[in-house]
């Protein structure tokens, strides 16, 4: 975003408003879905899916990840790999249960 002109920024502003509306709609959707009282597995999948879309919108547009330098992407790819590892650690518990 280093060499962005004032005209570009005006275009960005329109995008920010659209992203804001999308985030509001998705927030309402995620609350609405919770009233459907789905069983736990589809409920978790759906809630995390909506949260991931919202997170991706924030990261892509508000945090400008849609047009960022390579080094930031490398840093984040590494972070995501470690995060997935961290979140998967509880799964090891299934293979090491107390008899």
């Amino acid at each position, binding site marked *: 975003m280093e060499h962005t002109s*004032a005209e570009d920024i005006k275009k960005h502003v329109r995008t920010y408003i659209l992203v804001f509306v999308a985030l509001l709609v998705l927030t309402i959707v*995620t609350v609405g879905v919770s009233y459907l009282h789905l069983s736990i597995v589809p409920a*978790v999948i759906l809630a995390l899916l909506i949260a991931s879309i919202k997170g991706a919108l*924030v990261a892509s547009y*508000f*945090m400008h990840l849609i047009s960022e330098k390579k080094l*930031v992407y490398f*840093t984040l790819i590494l*972070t995501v790999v470690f995060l997935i590892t961290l979140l998967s650690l*509880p799964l090891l518990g299934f293979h090491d249960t107390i008899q």
Partner: protein
Amino acid sequence: MQIPYTVAARPDTGLHNSKLGIWLFLASEVMLFGALFSAYILLRVAASEWPHGSQLLNVPLAFLNTVILIGSSVTMVMSWASLMMKDFQKYRRYMGLTILCGFGFLVVKGFEYGAKFSHGLFPSEDLFYATYFTLTGLHGLHVIGGIIVNLYFWGPGSRMWKTEPERFTNRVEVAGLYWHFVDLVWIFLFPILYLL
């Protein structure tokens, strides 16, 4: 000695140092919250029973807080965009709104916490409340930290606009990246704690 690469991009990274710095910091933050989310998964999967968040927590208030925080993310990015368009007054207005939203979030959270405390519900109550208070408490501390940084850039820190406008714009962008991250964490905390 002047700090190098606060405005110009470093030739080897292609980024000014503050940008790379904040992303490395945010990477560590992902791991901090990631560890707590991981602990939450472990505790919840292992628990014989776990309450549905909406039965114990106030969903409308959390929904309101979600809207406040998303709104503050928009005003934050607008404050940076205003600086990019060289409109300092607009910057002050949007940054001020961002700070107000931050306080608004804390006030709503305060009501939520207060309602729990008045019913004698503390982190020591059970596993659910322990994870709820730990996750939202750490997130709340991040909101407080963000407000302090934003207040500085709204007030005394904004003097830099007159001497080094580009450097100041970069500072606001970096503060924004942190603020959006705090918003992002809440986007996941809200459904996980309140709706599942």
